[in-house]
Protein backbone atom coordinates (compact mmCIF):
# COMPACT_ATOMS: atom_id res chain seq x y z
CA UNK A 1 0.00 0.00 0.00
CA UNK A 2 1.84 3.09 -1.14
CA UNK A 3 1.73 6.05 1.19
CA UNK A 4 0.73 3.87 4.13
CA UNK A 5 3.24 5.44 6.49
CA UNK A 6 2.47 8.96 5.31
CA UNK A 7 -1.21 8.34 5.90
CA UNK A 8 -0.59 7.10 9.41
CA UNK A 9 1.55 10.16 10.16
CA UNK A 10 -1.08 12.54 8.78
CA UNK A 11 -3.88 10.82 10.69
CA UNK A 12 -2.04 10.92 13.97
CA UNK A 13 -1.19 14.59 13.47
CA UNK A 14 -4.77 15.52 12.73
CA UNK A 15 -6.26 13.51 15.60
CA UNK A 16 -3.66 14.67 18.08
CA UNK A 17 -2.62 11.10 18.81
CA UNK A 18 0.97 11.64 17.91
CA UNK A 19 2.42 10.06 21.06
CA UNK A 20 0.20 7.00 21.03
CA UNK A 21 0.55 6.23 17.35
CA UNK A 22 4.15 7.28 16.92
CA UNK A 23 5.25 3.75 17.86
CA UNK A 24 2.95 2.27 15.23
CA UNK A 25 4.25 4.69 12.61
CA UNK A 26 7.84 3.96 13.62
CA UNK A 27 7.27 0.22 13.37
CA UNK A 28 5.59 0.62 10.02
CA UNK A 29 8.40 2.89 8.86
CA UNK A 30 10.97 0.34 9.98
CA UNK A 31 9.29 -2.38 7.95
CA UNK A 32 9.14 -0.10 4.90
CA UNK A 33 12.84 0.70 5.31
CA UNK A 34 13.64 -3.00 5.53
CA UNK A 35 11.67 -3.73 2.38
CA UNK A 36 13.30 -0.83 0.54
CA UNK A 37 16.67 -2.08 1.73
CA UNK A 38 15.85 -5.49 0.27
CA UNK A 39 15.41 -3.77 -3.10
CA UNK A 40 11.63 -3.43 -3.26
CA UNK A 41 10.94 -0.44 -5.51
CA UNK A 42 7.44 0.14 -4.13
CA UNK A 43 8.80 0.37 -0.60
CA UNK A 44 11.33 2.97 -1.68
CA UNK A 45 8.54 5.00 -3.28
CA UNK A 46 6.68 4.80 0.03
CA UNK A 47 9.73 6.16 1.78
CA UNK A 48 9.81 9.10 -0.63
CA UNK A 49 6.10 9.74 -0.07
CA UNK A 50 6.56 9.60 3.67
CA UNK A 51 9.61 11.82 4.02
CA UNK A 52 9.66 14.17 1.03
CA UNK A 53 7.81 17.03 2.77
CA UNK A 54 10.13 16.80 5.75
CA UNK A 55 13.22 16.65 3.57
CA UNK A 56 12.02 19.57 1.45
CA UNK A 57 11.19 21.80 4.40
CA UNK A 58 14.47 21.07 6.19
CA UNK A 59 16.41 21.69 2.98
CA UNK A 60 14.51 24.91 2.42
CA UNK A 61 15.31 26.08 5.96
CA UNK A 62 18.94 25.15 5.50
CA UNK A 63 19.37 26.62 2.05
CA UNK A 64 16.85 29.43 2.08
CA UNK A 65 15.25 29.06 -1.31
CA UNK A 66 12.82 26.75 -3.01
CA UNK A 67 14.87 25.82 -6.07
CA UNK A 68 17.91 24.71 -4.10
CA UNK A 69 15.65 22.87 -1.67
CA UNK A 70 14.24 20.79 -4.57
CA UNK A 71 17.70 20.01 -5.90
CA UNK A 72 18.89 19.06 -2.43
CA UNK A 73 15.83 16.87 -1.79
CA UNK A 74 16.46 14.96 -5.01
CA UNK A 75 20.08 14.46 -4.06
CA UNK A 76 19.04 13.32 -0.57
CA UNK A 77 16.78 10.57 -1.92
CA UNK A 78 19.43 9.49 -4.41
CA UNK A 79 21.90 9.14 -1.56
CA UNK A 80 19.33 7.29 0.52
CA UNK A 81 18.87 4.83 -2.34
CA UNK A 82 22.62 4.47 -2.78
CA UNK A 83 23.52 3.95 0.87
CA UNK A 84 20.41 2.24 2.16
CA UNK A 85 22.26 -1.08 1.98
CA UNK A 86 24.63 0.17 4.67
CA UNK A 87 21.83 1.31 6.99
CA UNK A 88 21.65 -0.85 10.10
CA UNK A 89 18.25 -1.88 11.38
CA UNK A 90 19.11 -0.82 14.93
CA UNK A 91 19.67 2.77 13.77
CA UNK A 92 17.03 5.49 13.80
CA UNK A 93 16.06 6.03 10.17
CA UNK A 94 14.87 9.62 10.70
CA UNK A 95 18.18 10.59 12.34
CA UNK A 96 20.06 8.88 9.53
CA UNK A 97 17.97 10.76 6.97
CA UNK A 98 18.50 14.10 8.74
CA UNK A 99 22.21 13.47 8.64
CA UNK A 100 22.07 12.99 4.88
CA UNK A 101 19.95 16.15 4.51
CA UNK A 102 22.45 18.19 6.52
CA UNK A 103 25.39 16.81 4.53
CA UNK A 104 23.72 17.46 1.18
CA UNK A 105 22.83 21.03 2.23
CA UNK A 106 26.39 21.63 3.40
CA UNK A 107 27.65 20.40 0.02
CA UNK A 108 25.23 22.77 -1.72
CA UNK A 109 26.39 25.72 0.34
CA UNK A 110 30.03 24.78 -0.30
CA UNK A 111 29.37 24.62 -4.06
CA UNK A 112 27.87 28.07 -3.94
CA UNK A 113 31.00 29.35 -2.25
CA UNK A 114 29.67 29.35 1.29
CA UNK A 115 26.84 31.78 0.60
CA UNK A 116 23.20 31.14 1.33
CA UNK A 117 20.80 32.38 -1.29
CA UNK A 118 17.64 33.37 0.45
CA UNK A 119 14.45 34.00 -1.37
CA UNK A 120 13.27 37.55 -0.91
CA UNK A 121 9.62 38.53 -0.84
CA UNK A 122 9.90 39.64 -4.49
CA UNK A 123 11.50 36.38 -5.62
CA UNK A 124 8.76 34.35 -3.92
CA UNK A 125 6.20 36.41 -5.82
CA UNK A 126 8.09 35.82 -9.06
CA UNK A 127 8.25 32.08 -8.34
CA UNK A 128 4.46 32.03 -8.34
CA UNK A 129 4.03 31.55 -4.61
CA UNK A 130 0.83 33.62 -4.72
CA UNK A 131 -0.60 32.24 -7.96
CA UNK A 132 -2.97 29.89 -6.22
CA UNK A 133 -4.49 32.64 -4.13
CA UNK A 134 -8.00 33.71 -4.91
CA UNK A 135 -9.51 36.33 -2.61
CA UNK A 136 -7.99 39.68 -1.70
CA UNK A 137 -7.71 38.63 1.97
CA UNK A 138 -5.74 35.58 0.99
CA UNK A 139 -3.38 37.71 -1.03
CA UNK A 140 -2.78 40.07 1.87
CA UNK A 141 -2.35 37.31 4.44
CA UNK A 142 0.00 35.38 2.23
CA UNK A 143 1.99 38.49 1.38
CA UNK A 144 2.54 39.05 5.11
CA UNK A 145 3.50 35.40 5.54
CA UNK A 146 5.94 35.58 2.66
CA UNK A 147 7.47 38.77 4.01
CA UNK A 148 7.90 37.24 7.44
CA UNK A 149 9.42 34.13 5.90
CA UNK A 150 11.87 36.26 3.96
CA UNK A 151 12.84 38.11 7.15
CA UNK A 152 13.41 34.88 9.04
CA UNK A 153 15.42 33.56 6.13
CA UNK A 154 17.58 36.67 6.32
CA UNK A 155 17.96 36.18 10.05
CA UNK A 156 19.11 32.59 9.46
CA UNK A 157 21.57 33.96 6.93
CA UNK A 158 23.48 35.65 9.73
CA UNK A 159 24.44 32.22 11.10
CA UNK A 160 27.31 29.99 10.14
CA UNK A 161 26.47 26.70 8.44
CA UNK A 162 27.00 24.71 11.64
CA UNK A 163 25.00 27.10 13.81
CA UNK A 164 22.26 27.10 11.23
CA UNK A 165 22.10 23.31 11.08
CA UNK A 166 21.98 23.04 14.86
CA UNK A 167 19.29 25.72 15.19
CA UNK A 168 17.12 24.37 12.37
CA UNK A 169 17.20 20.86 13.79
CA UNK A 170 16.69 21.88 17.42
CA UNK A 171 14.25 24.80 17.21
CA UNK A 172 12.46 24.30 13.88
CA UNK A 173 12.50 20.53 13.45
CA UNK A 174 12.04 19.92 17.16
CA UNK A 175 14.83 17.41 17.71
CA UNK A 176 16.37 17.10 21.18
CA UNK A 177 19.94 18.29 21.81
CA UNK A 178 21.06 14.68 21.99
CA UNK A 179 19.46 13.87 18.64
CA UNK A 180 20.95 16.99 17.05
CA UNK A 181 24.38 15.98 18.35
CA UNK A 182 23.93 12.52 16.86
CA UNK A 183 22.81 13.90 13.50
CA UNK A 184 25.62 16.43 13.29
CA UNK A 185 28.21 14.00 14.61
CA UNK A 186 29.35 16.33 17.40
CA UNK A 187 29.10 16.46 21.17
CA UNK A 188 26.10 17.82 23.05
CA UNK A 189 28.28 20.56 24.53
CA UNK A 190 29.25 21.72 21.05
CA UNK A 191 25.64 21.65 19.92
CA UNK A 192 24.54 23.67 22.99
CA UNK A 193 27.23 26.22 22.28
CA UNK A 194 26.17 26.49 18.62
CA UNK A 195 22.51 26.78 19.54
CA UNK A 196 23.21 29.42 22.17
CA UNK A 197 25.24 31.51 19.75
CA UNK A 198 22.63 31.08 17.00
CA UNK A 199 19.73 32.15 19.25
CA UNK A 200 21.65 35.23 20.36
CA UNK A 201 22.31 36.20 16.74
CA UNK A 202 18.67 35.70 15.77
CA UNK A 203 17.59 37.91 18.68
CA UNK A 204 20.09 40.58 17.63
CA UNK A 205 18.76 40.51 14.07
CA UNK A 206 15.16 40.76 15.27
CA UNK A 207 16.04 43.66 17.58
CA UNK A 208 17.63 45.48 14.64
CA UNK A 209 14.58 44.91 12.45
CA UNK A 210 12.20 46.01 15.21
CA UNK A 211 14.20 49.18 15.90
CA UNK A 212 14.22 49.97 12.19
CA UNK A 213 10.45 49.46 11.99
CA UNK A 214 9.83 51.65 15.05
CA UNK A 215 12.11 54.37 13.65
CA UNK A 216 10.01 54.74 10.49
Amino acid at each position, binding site marked *: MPGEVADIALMTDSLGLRDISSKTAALSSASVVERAKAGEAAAF*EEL*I*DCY*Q*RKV*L*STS*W*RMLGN*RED*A*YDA*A*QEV*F*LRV*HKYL*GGFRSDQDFAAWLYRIVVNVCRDHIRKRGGHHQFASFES*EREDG*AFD*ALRSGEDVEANAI*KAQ*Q*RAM*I*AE*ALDTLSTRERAALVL*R*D*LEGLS*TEEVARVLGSSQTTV*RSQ*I*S*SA*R*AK*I*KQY*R*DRVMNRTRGR
Partner: protein
Amino acid sequence: MNCRRVEKLMPLYVQGDLASGIAERLASHLEWCGRCNWLADEYKESQSWLRSSQEPEFDEADLHALKAGVLSRIADTSAKPSLLASLAQHWGRRQVLALSAAMLIIFGVLVFYIYQASMRAKPSVIEAKIEPPDTRPVQPGVTPPEVDQGTSKETKSRKSSQASNRASIKPRPAAPMSAQQAALSPTPQQSLPEPPGTNAAEPVGEIFDSYNSEGMLRIELQTGDPNIRIIWFAPKEVEAPKTTQ
Protein backbone atom coordinates in the same frame (compact mmCIF):
# COMPACT_ATOMS: atom_id res chain seq x y z
CA MET B 1 24.47 33.69 40.01
CA ASN B 2 25.20 37.19 38.67
CA CYS B 3 23.53 38.98 35.76
CA ARG B 4 26.47 38.47 33.43
CA ARG B 5 26.31 34.71 33.87
CA VAL B 6 22.53 34.76 33.44
CA GLU B 7 22.92 36.72 30.21
CA LYS B 8 25.25 34.03 28.88
CA LEU B 9 22.97 31.17 29.81
CA MET B 10 19.73 32.83 28.75
CA PRO B 11 19.65 31.51 25.12
CA LEU B 12 19.75 27.97 26.46
CA TYR B 13 17.39 28.60 29.36
CA VAL B 14 14.49 29.84 27.20
CA GLN B 15 14.13 26.48 25.46
CA GLY B 16 14.97 24.28 28.43
CA ASP B 17 18.43 23.27 27.27
CA LEU B 18 20.06 23.78 30.66
CA ALA B 19 20.66 21.14 33.32
CA SER B 20 17.96 21.24 35.99
CA GLY B 21 20.22 22.55 38.78
CA ILE B 22 21.50 25.50 36.75
CA ALA B 23 18.02 26.22 35.40
CA GLU B 24 16.63 26.41 38.96
CA ARG B 25 19.34 28.83 40.06
CA LEU B 26 18.71 30.97 37.00
CA ALA B 27 14.96 30.94 37.64
CA SER B 28 15.48 32.10 41.22
CA HIS B 29 17.67 34.94 39.89
CA LEU B 30 14.91 35.96 37.50
CA GLU B 31 12.44 36.25 40.40
CA TRP B 32 14.14 39.36 41.75
CA CYS B 33 16.18 40.73 38.76
CA GLY B 34 13.95 42.84 36.49
CA ARG B 35 16.64 43.43 33.85
CA CYS B 36 17.30 39.71 33.38
CA ASN B 37 13.57 39.06 33.42
CA TRP B 38 13.15 41.53 30.58
CA LEU B 39 15.99 39.77 28.68
CA ALA B 40 14.28 36.42 29.13
CA ASP B 41 11.05 37.83 27.67
CA GLU B 42 12.94 39.17 24.67
CA TYR B 43 14.52 35.80 24.01
CA LYS B 44 11.14 34.10 24.28
CA GLU B 45 9.63 36.54 21.79
CA SER B 46 12.55 36.01 19.43
CA GLN B 47 12.09 32.26 19.60
CA SER B 48 8.37 32.45 18.94
CA TRP B 49 9.05 34.83 16.03
CA LEU B 50 11.50 32.28 14.58
CA ARG B 51 9.01 29.46 14.99
CA SER B 52 6.27 31.51 13.39
CA SER B 53 8.04 30.94 10.10
CA GLN B 54 5.74 28.62 8.26
CA GLU B 55 7.14 26.12 5.87
CA PRO B 56 6.71 27.04 2.23
CA GLU B 57 3.80 25.18 0.76
CA PHE B 58 4.75 22.39 -1.59
CA ASP B 59 1.82 21.39 -3.75
CA GLU B 60 1.15 17.86 -4.90
CA ALA B 61 2.39 18.53 -8.42
CA ASP B 62 5.78 19.64 -7.09
CA LEU B 63 6.03 16.61 -4.83
CA HIS B 64 5.07 14.32 -7.69
CA ALA B 65 7.70 15.94 -9.91
CA LEU B 66 10.30 15.47 -7.20
CA LYS B 67 9.46 11.79 -6.82
CA ALA B 68 9.43 11.23 -10.57
CA GLY B 69 12.80 12.97 -10.91
CA VAL B 70 14.37 10.84 -8.19
CA LEU B 71 13.01 7.59 -9.63
CA SER B 72 14.14 8.41 -13.17
CA ARG B 73 17.64 9.28 -11.96
CA ILE B 74 17.78 6.03 -10.00
CA ALA B 75 16.67 4.14 -13.12
CA ASP B 76 19.44 5.85 -15.12
CA THR B 77 22.13 4.95 -12.63
CA SER B 78 20.95 1.38 -12.04
CA ALA B 79 20.75 0.72 -15.80
CA LYS B 80 24.52 0.76 -16.09
CA PRO B 81 26.00 -0.15 -12.73
CA SER B 82 29.76 -0.05 -12.37
CA LEU B 83 31.74 -3.24 -11.79
CA LEU B 84 32.37 -2.31 -8.18
CA ALA B 85 28.71 -1.48 -7.60
CA SER B 86 27.54 -4.77 -9.04
CA LEU B 87 30.13 -6.63 -6.95
CA ALA B 88 29.05 -4.77 -3.84
CA GLN B 89 25.43 -5.61 -4.61
CA HIS B 90 25.96 -9.35 -4.77
CA TRP B 91 28.92 -9.79 -2.45
CA GLY B 92 29.43 -8.88 1.14
CA ARG B 93 32.17 -6.57 2.35
CA ARG B 94 34.34 -9.48 3.51
CA GLN B 95 34.08 -11.19 0.14
CA VAL B 96 35.07 -8.00 -1.68
CA LEU B 97 38.03 -7.60 0.70
CA ALA B 98 39.09 -11.22 0.15
CA LEU B 99 38.89 -10.76 -3.62
CA SER B 100 41.00 -7.61 -3.52
CA ALA B 101 43.58 -9.34 -1.31
CA ALA B 102 43.75 -12.29 -3.73
CA MET B 103 44.16 -9.94 -6.70
CA LEU B 104 46.92 -8.10 -4.87
CA ILE B 105 48.78 -11.36 -4.20
CA ILE B 106 48.44 -12.47 -7.84
CA PHE B 107 49.74 -9.11 -9.00
CA GLY B 108 52.69 -9.34 -6.62
CA VAL B 109 53.59 -12.85 -7.82
CA LEU B 110 53.40 -11.69 -11.45
CA VAL B 111 55.69 -8.74 -10.79
CA PHE B 112 58.17 -11.01 -8.99
CA TYR B 113 58.11 -13.54 -11.84
CA ILE B 114 58.75 -10.84 -14.46
CA TYR B 115 61.59 -9.42 -12.38
CA GLN B 116 63.19 -12.86 -12.02
CA ALA B 117 62.87 -13.53 -15.77
CA SER B 118 64.51 -10.23 -16.63
CA MET B 119 67.37 -10.93 -14.20
CA ARG B 120 67.93 -14.37 -15.73
CA ALA B 121 68.21 -12.89 -19.24
CA LYS B 122 71.10 -10.61 -18.22
CA PRO B 123 74.67 -12.12 -18.02
CA SER B 124 75.84 -12.25 -14.46
CA VAL B 125 79.55 -11.87 -15.24
CA ILE B 126 80.98 -9.46 -17.78
CA GLU B 127 84.02 -10.96 -19.34
CA ALA B 128 86.56 -9.12 -21.40
CA LYS B 129 87.34 -9.79 -24.99
CA ILE B 130 90.99 -9.08 -25.48
CA GLU B 131 91.93 -7.51 -28.73
CA PRO B 132 95.28 -8.41 -30.35
CA PRO B 133 97.87 -5.74 -29.69
CA ASP B 134 99.46 -3.83 -32.51
CA THR B 135 102.82 -5.49 -33.06
CA ARG B 136 103.95 -3.28 -35.96
CA PRO B 137 107.18 -1.38 -35.29
CA VAL B 138 106.82 2.24 -34.33
CA GLN B 139 108.43 4.53 -36.90
CA PRO B 140 110.09 7.68 -35.64
CA GLY B 141 108.05 10.85 -36.22
CA VAL B 142 104.89 8.96 -36.84
CA THR B 143 102.17 9.05 -34.28
CA PRO B 144 101.60 5.57 -33.02
CA PRO B 145 98.20 4.19 -33.90
CA GLU B 146 95.56 3.57 -31.30
CA VAL B 147 95.46 0.20 -29.73
CA ASP B 148 91.97 -0.50 -30.98
CA GLN B 149 92.70 0.79 -34.46
CA GLY B 150 91.69 -1.60 -37.17
CA THR B 151 88.92 -3.27 -35.18
CA SER B 152 85.53 -4.00 -36.64
CA LYS B 153 83.11 -1.34 -37.82
CA GLU B 154 80.85 -2.14 -34.93
CA THR B 155 83.56 -1.22 -32.47
CA LYS B 156 84.11 2.05 -34.31
CA SER B 157 80.49 2.97 -34.18
CA ARG B 158 80.38 2.11 -30.51
CA LYS B 159 83.43 4.24 -29.94
CA SER B 160 81.75 7.21 -31.56
CA SER B 161 78.75 6.77 -29.27
CA GLN B 162 81.06 6.61 -26.30
CA ALA B 163 82.99 9.71 -27.32
CA SER B 164 81.75 11.67 -24.35
CA ASN B 165 82.80 8.97 -21.92
CA ARG B 166 86.20 8.72 -23.46
CA ALA B 167 86.88 12.43 -23.53
CA SER B 168 88.97 12.20 -20.40
CA ILE B 169 90.89 9.15 -21.63
CA LYS B 170 92.95 10.36 -24.53
CA PRO B 171 94.70 7.70 -26.55
CA ARG B 172 98.25 7.38 -25.38
CA PRO B 173 101.18 6.01 -27.31
CA ALA B 174 101.11 2.30 -27.31
CA ALA B 175 103.76 0.91 -25.11
CA PRO B 176 105.71 -2.12 -26.13
CA MET B 177 103.79 -5.21 -25.28
CA SER B 178 104.55 -6.50 -21.87
CA ALA B 179 105.09 -10.11 -21.06
CA GLN B 180 101.74 -10.31 -19.36
CA GLN B 181 100.01 -8.74 -22.33
CA ALA B 182 101.86 -11.10 -24.63
CA ALA B 183 100.70 -13.98 -22.55
CA LEU B 184 97.14 -12.74 -22.56
CA SER B 185 96.92 -11.78 -26.20
CA PRO B 186 96.62 -14.39 -28.89
CA THR B 187 99.23 -14.75 -31.57
CA PRO B 188 98.36 -13.53 -35.08
CA GLN B 189 98.01 -17.13 -36.17
CA GLN B 190 95.39 -17.79 -33.52
CA SER B 191 91.84 -17.20 -34.59
CA LEU B 192 90.47 -13.94 -33.23
CA PRO B 193 87.17 -13.90 -31.42
CA GLU B 194 84.18 -12.65 -33.36
CA PRO B 195 82.98 -9.11 -32.78
CA PRO B 196 80.57 -8.72 -29.89
CA GLY B 197 76.94 -9.11 -30.65
CA THR B 198 77.34 -11.89 -33.19
CA ASN B 199 76.77 -14.52 -30.56
CA ALA B 200 74.75 -13.86 -27.46
CA ALA B 201 76.72 -16.38 -25.43
CA GLU B 202 80.00 -14.62 -26.11
CA PRO B 203 81.50 -12.24 -23.57
CA VAL B 204 80.89 -8.59 -24.15
CA GLY B 205 83.71 -6.07 -23.80
CA GLU B 206 87.07 -5.01 -25.21
CA ILE B 207 90.44 -3.71 -24.21
CA PHE B 208 90.04 -0.04 -24.47
CA ASP B 209 93.44 1.39 -23.86
CA SER B 210 96.71 0.48 -22.31
CA TYR B 211 99.87 2.33 -21.43
CA ASN B 212 102.85 2.14 -19.26
CA SER B 213 102.96 4.87 -16.67
CA GLU B 214 105.67 5.16 -14.05
CA GLY B 215 106.25 1.46 -14.08
CA MET B 216 102.57 0.51 -13.83
CA LEU B 217 100.71 -1.03 -16.72
CA ARG B 218 97.15 0.26 -17.04
CA ILE B 219 94.57 -1.75 -18.97
CA GLU B 220 91.08 -0.39 -19.54
CA LEU B 221 88.30 -2.75 -20.45
CA GLN B 222 85.07 -1.33 -21.89
CA THR B 223 82.17 -3.57 -21.02
CA GLY B 224 78.97 -3.97 -23.00
CA ASP B 225 77.42 -1.29 -20.81
CA PRO B 226 78.86 2.06 -21.96
CA ASN B 227 78.73 3.32 -18.38
CA ILE B 228 80.94 0.56 -16.97
CA ARG B 229 84.68 0.50 -17.67
CA ILE B 230 87.12 -1.76 -15.89
CA ILE B 231 90.57 -0.29 -15.27
CA TRP B 232 93.33 -2.68 -14.32
CA PHE B 233 96.88 -1.75 -13.18
CA ALA B 234 99.59 -4.40 -13.59
CA PRO B 235 102.83 -4.33 -11.55
CA LYS B 236 106.04 -2.99 -13.07
CA GLU B 237 108.29 -6.06 -12.73
CA VAL B 238 106.54 -7.86 -15.60
CA GLU B 239 108.52 -5.62 -17.94
CA ALA B 240 111.78 -7.34 -17.06
CA PRO B 241 112.31 -8.84 -20.50
CA LYS B 242 112.47 -5.33 -22.03
CA THR B 243 115.48 -4.33 -19.86
CA THR B 244 117.42 -7.40 -20.92
CA GLN B 245 117.33 -6.36 -24.60
